[in-house]
């Protein structure tokens, strides 16, 4: 310590004739200072990373629901837990429905990509929406892969055909949904335009 003191004093007296009071500084002070700094940074970084991961997990799906997938797992669980003996063909049907839905989502996401990119670039939606989109693409991909793997377990050698069949089912289901919507559309438009029909659907003028 004394050595330190003298050296300090000598340097200072040269320039400044001792106007600055000297205080003894422990050797550990800089170490403590640095370690506090480093530790706080590490804590902040890990906290931040955890928070972003949590946020990503909590991001709501772009799709309103995931019923096709949920229904399959509900049935499977029903079967596995022995609550009810679910016929193999029903499980297969639920899996096909899930596969078809996964294909629909993949197509939908691919198709909407330019639009969502444009929305994000134009600042019409926030950062969060963009993250949700990218998240969704990954989730759908995983879900489809999982469905294909399940198909392999269910019936070895099936996956290739499963994908082909799911594709047809996807389109046919969409066609059917539109066909079934015709009735409702009729009602809505009749109300909106205030036109009346007789019981057979003939226009009353």
């Amino acid at each position, binding site marked *: 310590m004394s050595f330190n003191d003298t050296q300090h004093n000598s340097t200072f007296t040269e320039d*400044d004739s001792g106007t600055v009071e000297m205080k003894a500084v422990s050797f550990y002070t800089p170490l403590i200072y640095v370690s506090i700094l480093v530790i706080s940074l590490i804590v902040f970084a890990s906290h931040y990373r955890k928070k972003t991961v949590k946020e990503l997990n909590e991001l709501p799906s772009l799709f309103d629901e995931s019923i096709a997938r949920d229904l399959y797992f509900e049935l499977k669980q029903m079967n596995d837990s022995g609550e009810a003996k679910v016929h193999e063909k029903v499980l297969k049907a639920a899996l096909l429905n899930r596969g078809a839905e996964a294909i629909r989502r993949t197509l939908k996401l691919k198709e909407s990509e330019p639009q969502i990119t444009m929305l994000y670039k134009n600042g*019409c939606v*926030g950062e969060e929406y963009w993250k949700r989109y990218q998240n969704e693409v990954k989730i759908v991909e995983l879900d489809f892969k999982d469905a294909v793997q399940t198909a392999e377990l269910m019936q070895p050698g099936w996956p290739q055909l499963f994908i082909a069949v799911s594709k047809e089912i996807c389109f046919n289901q*969409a066609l059917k949904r539109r066909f079934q919507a015709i009735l409702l559309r009729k009602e809505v438009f009749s109300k909106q335009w205030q036109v009346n029909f007789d019981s057979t659907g003939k226009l009353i003028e």
Partner: protein
Amino acid sequence: MPQSYDYDESSETWPFFILAVLCVVLVPLTAMQLWELVSGKKSEQHLKDQASILGEMSEQYASREILEFRAKAMAKKSKWLAKRNLFIIAGWTVVAYLVQYIGSNEEIQDAATLLFDPYALLDISTSSTDREVRSAYRKLSVKFHPDKLSKDLSSEQRSVLEEQYVLITKAYKSLTDEITRENYLKYGHPDGPQAISHGIALPKFLVDSSASTIMILTYIALLGLVLPYFVSRWWSRTQSVTKKGIHVKSASYFSDRLFNYKPSQVVTLDLIIEWLSHAEEFKLMFPELNEKTFETLLHDQINRKHSGNLETAKLRIVAKSNVLLFGLLDIATTFRNLEISNMTIDTLKAVVQATPISPYSQLLQLPNVNAESLTEGSVDDIRTIGKLFTYEDAKIGKILGIDDSTKLQETLSVASSIPHLKLIRAEFKVPGESVVTPQSMPHISLKVLVRSAKHKFFPPNLIPDEMCQDKDDFESLKDPFASLLEQPKLPQTFAPYYPGKRSGCWCALVVLQKDGKVIQTPMLVDRLSFENLNKDFDKRTVKNLDEEFKPEDWVIGSIKIPFSQPAPEEKGDFFFRVIVKSTEYFGTDLDFTLSLSVRDPSPVEQMEKEAADEASESDEDDSELDENDDSNDESDEEESDYTDIDTDTDDEEPEAGRVSDTKAEGDSAEN
């Protein structure tokens, strides 16, 4: 390196510090305030510029509650302005005091005089020649030389003057002697480098002993807490609002709705209102209310129903709906959905006019109309204002169920003042070209006439081409959209049920006819002259159109829609549907098909262009307009000798299969 810092014991620097900080805040704030003052005057001015019967009636028919709400909104704004004004005034007062303080403080003056300026000392200009320097020095040295000083001066005065002499000599040397001059240029002083002192612009008592801890804490608080707090708040604020001014959560919700929208669904007013009621803005304004309530309130607005004790809440969310619907419109157009885009604008109309969407909306938006007698009473099915004006006034009163004659007159004056757009000319235009060449950058140029539904109909070709031409000067070639700013802003809307004064706009949507989808975000038209509406060109009294119609009496408006993409590479005709939709009134929109004819520039034209580069090109322009007219107006085209294919199935089946095969993929995925 000096090892100690000077504190501002004599208070010579800290006023400068505060002055600088104050100016950094005050100058932009004041500029902003002044700008707002000017632009506010301007916007008031524009309302007066185009004062129309609509604005007057809007005030007259507004209920007491609406008027109070509008007044309150104005008061709130002015109160906020008053607070800011107060701050600005106080700030400048402090600045004035500081300036005065600095001026009167001797220490500061002294510090300033210590700065060495040889030109000032010798009292010459900086551009003086050596000779001038020398003569100035000689003159002054005669005056100040210690030997020449008068004997009866006190020793004090003498020393001041001697000092002055030294300075003058130094100044002279610094301008003539090589070394001194170099010193002056390098260090700002003839004697070479001066001692540099780093000071802290704080009075010493703040840094001394006991106060020093407080000072350090203040610094930590400022830099470590207050600054990050404000920065993060500013950041989260910019992050929470989209560029279109709606909350990101609302934007996300709307995008979700568009993304999950099933094409088999019918888009109705109720659907849009349901979406709108989920807006984050409403939740932030009224955390105690839920979506269902917002939905009911919005329906109340449209159905002109009083919402009881939620009336103020209703008015506030209605006022907010405007920006939300524009945000939704932007998202819907980006998703290329025409149906939803159209219905969003219709919803805005319904909210503004407090009139539900029905076949009779055009008439129900008028004041005093009795909805029951309108739908039940009349024999003829009248749904448009234009049709209404084919009847005599008394009959109109009967149709609308208005007995009172003054009320009827007011209704009629509103009805005849509602602006209807009439298309005069439409074309794709490339500035400076007569045709649209491949890969050029065209825009859509519309010539419209704002007319009243009361006016007698006349075909657009009665308006001569000369009236539909844009200026062809350099400025309009450089920026074809600049000329639009010469048109006056839209006047106030007739909207007695809307909780604010508004003038609205027309939204121009462009749709690709090939797939029936929107191709670009809407362009908003908020400038058009309404002068034509004052004309009495009554369809019931005008008998001879050719005699009574004078084209020069009418004002032709101009709308230019930027086209988001360059013209296609290949030549050919491409068809677009252009929809110019009012956000304010029902039945005033334009909807037509426009062809984009991509052609090579004709050799004749090119030669002409080369020949008459600088001459006027009016002849050429005429021919071009004619040409475009033909292609726009399909119904006027001559019948071709093409025989109709109505052979049904056989021919079309394979083609249909092919088309649907490729298309269905995307379509089904959409469902």
